[in-house]
């Protein structure tokens, strides 16, 4: 493997993962339950009552899932962990509040006119969900909504790392949420799939979160790096993963005898069979998480949060591509 051509754009100090939470189409937090695309979306009211303890009547489905996913993550953290801490919220979403935008714009374009719902318009703004979450968590300060298609979550993680490293915040609640909205054909088009493209999984949804900090006390794992590289595929992609692993050993983030560490590879929805095979042939266990969450712009959040909660003594790498072949890689360990 030719590692010389690998250009690592950024190096980061390690961050602790203090809590994780993943929520897929079955709407049961932190569980792998079966679901079918044809039955989506499931009503979230039961989940909202369970997690939030009260209905969010004025909020749409996207906002509800953002809040439920984030709070399910915080439930696994030490109690009152956010109290007196400068916390940032980084919400990643590829398609945003599409569940509010569609009915609003449909009303706008109806032939008989009439005013559409002002509440629906206010909630259709992409950062409305982050506002609801910030209010629920009593977080003031840095609250960002980031959107970059299938790299939305990776971009949000990269940004959160930046602010944590700078000391601007002590904790970062970083998550990815996208909702399933009919029709499947239009959803695929919104995801930049073309007619005839083969998808490795059905279209899905999810809301999955990590709580990151600098302290290693009571952490479930470590976030090692986020790399958004250019045009890597197959062998050089794998080589980058191996390089990350070696860096982890060199920096003391993994024991030297790393053969005892499980190496878990999480393939994103645009990775080809060739890409997956390259990782498997290099000794990585391929954990195909997509059947549990389906394809959505922020499926990587589900995959990473799930892996961090499921695997012990593991090094974990998630890799996906965008429609132009550019790769994004996240490295973590437990």
């Amino acid at each position, binding site marked *: 493997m030719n590692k010389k051509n690998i250009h690592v754009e950024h190096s980061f100090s390690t961050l602790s993962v203090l809590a994780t939470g993943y929520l897929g189409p079955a709407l049961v937090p932190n569980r792998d339950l079966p679901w079918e695309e044809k039955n989506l979306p499931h009503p979230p009211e039961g989940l909202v009552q369970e997690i939030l303890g009260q209905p969010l009547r004025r909020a749409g489905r996207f906002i509800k899932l953002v809040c439920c996913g984030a709070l399910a993550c915080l439930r696994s953290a030490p109690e009152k962990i956010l109290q007196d801490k400068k916390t940032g919220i980084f919400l990643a979403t590829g398609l945003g509040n599409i569940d509010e935008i569609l009915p609003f714009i449909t009303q706008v374009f109806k032939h008989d006119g009439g*005013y559409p719902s*002002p509440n629906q318009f206010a909630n259709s703004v992409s950062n409305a969900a982050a*506002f609801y979450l910030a209010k629920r968590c009593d977080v003031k300060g840095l609250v960002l909504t980031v959107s970059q298609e299938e790299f939305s979550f990776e971009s949000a993680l990269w940004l959160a790392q930046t602010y944590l490293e700078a000391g601007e915040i002590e904790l970062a609640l970083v998550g990815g949420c996208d909702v399933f909205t009919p029709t499947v054909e239009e959803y695929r088009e919104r995801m930049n799939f073309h007619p005839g493209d083969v998808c490795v999984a059905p279209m899905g949804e999810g809301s999955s979160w990590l709580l990151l900090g600098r302290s290693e006390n009571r952490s479930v794992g470590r976030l090692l790096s986020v790399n958004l590289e250019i045009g890597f595929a197959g062998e050089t992609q794998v080589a980058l993963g191996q390089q990350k692993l070696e860096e982890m050993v060199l920096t003391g983030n993994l024991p030297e005898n790393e053969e005892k560490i499980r190496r878990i590879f999480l393939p994103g929805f645009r990775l080809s069979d060739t890409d997956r095979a390259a990782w498997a042939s290099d000794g990585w266990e391929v954990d195909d998480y997509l059947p549990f969450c389906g394809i959505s712009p922020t499926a990587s959040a589900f995959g990473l949060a799930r892996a961090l909660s499921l695997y012990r003594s593991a090094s974990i790498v998630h890799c996906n591509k965008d429609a132009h072949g550019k790769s994004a890689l996240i490295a973590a360990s437990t």
Partner: protein
Amino acid sequence: MNIRGWGAVTALGWSTDESAQNLLAGRVRQGSVCVSSHLTNRDFKAYEVSGDDNPLEKSFRMLDASITEAFVRGGLSESEIAESALLVGTTGGIFIRNEFEFTEFVRSHPGGESPAIACRNRGPGEVADRIAQKYGIRGQKLTFSMACVSSSHAMVAAAQLLAQGKIKRAIVVGFEPLLNLTLQGFASLLLYDAEACRPFCNTRSGMQIGEASSCVILEQEAVPASGNHSFSLVGGCLYNDNSSLTSAGTNGELVEKILSQTLDKAGLAAGRIVAVKAHGTGTRDNDLSEGRGLVRVFGEKMPPVISLKGAIGHCLGAAGAVETALWLSCLEEGKLPRSFGFAEVDPEIGFAPSLENRQAPDGAYLFAFFGFGGTCTSYIITKTGRHE
């Protein structure tokens, strides 16, 4: 961070130079009924960019013109463009495609039943993807979709990334074509003024939307000589208050807090501020909140306060980049622009915005933006004359 280049397309013109010249010359029209073919309600007034092409093509042309102007002004080479990071602020993204295609379908099938409008755009991130592909930008791409502070947040985030050496150069873009979605949306919230946009005026009753596209280029290192002055972004604050989804409150405390934090971060006392580029939307609550906040910060030593929205409208997610670019072009002319739309002091605010062009001395200029979701952005841009 040094500001290397900027560009913009507004209702005042197809470049920041043209827009600034029209603004300083007083060639400003109030918002008016729009002519774009995709707009379904001909009663709404807005600040529309001129153009004969269809609205989708026009919006792409706006985007390209603003970026090209910034690249040319900054003298960026192809390799410099390639190695830059791209940060975009937009609320609607390329939603205009949905609206245009739907209205064209209806127009071409008169009397027939039209399907429901589809939403086929790829989310806000599609804008950054389009720009990166077209201009060969290979660095990080990041899109902020955060209502009216989208591109102002992008500016401050870019400065943070530059300060930490995460990126070498930031191309910050604001993009906001006129949409039925937003025109109807703000009207439904009773935030639209059917008469005029009148920032800080006692008779104000709402905002009017403007369409625009803009690009501002930031970098850490000293920039090549271009123009008569050097501009730097110093001190920037992002803040989210969780009290209200649609209002920053009206007592001015939040505004005071964010502006004071910005001054502290820049290491400047309030007395050092030459002028304030206010958010000044023309809505009752925003202007009251902002006005009171400014009084809390500056007291009786209020510098000139200017809102650009009476001249170009509220450009929503693009407001940050657009108003920054337009302001810089005015400063390059040696002038501070005046506010438009104002007629009468609101006794609850207690001051009038600046109503005349002024000389623009070297010094620090304070920028403020506020948006839905309790969001606030503030930063300071310093101007210094070039010494050969």
